[in-house]
């Protein structure tokens, strides 16, 4: 028997399941023993209901600096211009 994480991975890897309509997916044999939380999440089309099974955490998604040319360089004296001394690359956004 697959648990919810295994089932999610199985859905993600199966072309027939990945884009199935929610009503078809919840009736699929692969989900015969799926948890109520997963079935609700499928019907609602998002993962909010999975919080009932896994809990919820706020995940920060941004992984780059949003004020380039200042915080991605060494600390500067107060009042320095926020201009980089060299061209910024993709790794210094």
């Amino acid at each position, binding site marked *: 028997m697959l648990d919810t*994480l295994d089932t*999610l*991975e*199985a*859905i*993600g*890897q199966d072309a027939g*399941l*990945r884009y199935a309509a*929610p009503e078809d*997916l919840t009736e699929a044999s692969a989900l015969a023993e799926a948890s109520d939380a*997963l079935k609700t*999440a*499928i019907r609602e*089309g*998002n*993962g909010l209901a*999975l919080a009932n099974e*896994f*809990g*919820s*955490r706020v*995940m*920060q*998604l*941004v*992984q*780059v*600096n*949003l*004020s*380039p*040319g200042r*915080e*991605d360089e060494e600390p500067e004296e107060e009042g320095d211009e*926020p201009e980089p001394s060299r061209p910024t690359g*993709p*790794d*210094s*956004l």
Partner: protein
Amino acid sequence: MTSSVNSITAETPRGSIACVGVGMTLGSHLTPLARSHIQQADVVFAAVSDNVVEMWLERMHPDVRSLQPYYGEGKPRMVTYREWVEVMMTEVRAGKRVCAVFYGHPGIFAWSPHKVIEVARAEGFAARMEPGISAEDCLYADLGIDPGKFGCQHLEASQLLYYDHEIDPTGYVVLWQVGMVGNRSIARDGHGGGHRELLLERLTQDYPLDLEVTIYRCATLPIEQPRIRRLTLQELPHAEISAEETVVFPPAKPLKRNRRFIERLAALDNEQVA
């Protein structure tokens, strides 16, 4: 010292690091090579998009350490990212095979993967990056955009305000992280109305207010579908836009032929025929 992780020999146990992407959608995008890096590592660090994805990772390795706790209310992001580099390098220096897992592609809109590889190589450790399916990749598929058709420019929203970028409205323009524009920490999350007013002012230098733009979010769980909304540019400052949503501008002006280079190309062709 080679930069190849695989070239490390058993006789000379040395730390190494591989930065890999899990792609955007759980189960759908993880490459066999990324999975192998995860499974062969001594320790795995994770900065992923969803706590379910993090739990999924924990199925692949018994020592997955989340990087999420390093964020802090009001704490500059760069402080967090430098801490990530340091905590990963601590394990590399201790001789561990480290795998750092990021959502999407580890080298796109992510500072610390590039930095940790730079630092590791400078110290003589093997380090490499494995690509993952990015939000950009999903965007092309879900919105039916071919970047080769008219050209496609990618800009981070805050950078568009900080620097005098030139927008090319004859091609697609993809504006990332509009929901976080001007936000240096995680204190204010996605509600920069004033910042977005400034962004609108900048954008109207190149676009009409009634231009229809697309707000896009790709699926992170395989039970989701992409979220695609359309609104006019003038609605942008007050629209609900989350950190993971992207604004796509369609070509707003026709491509203009470069007659000078077309003539020179023709001249070259004629020379080759003659």
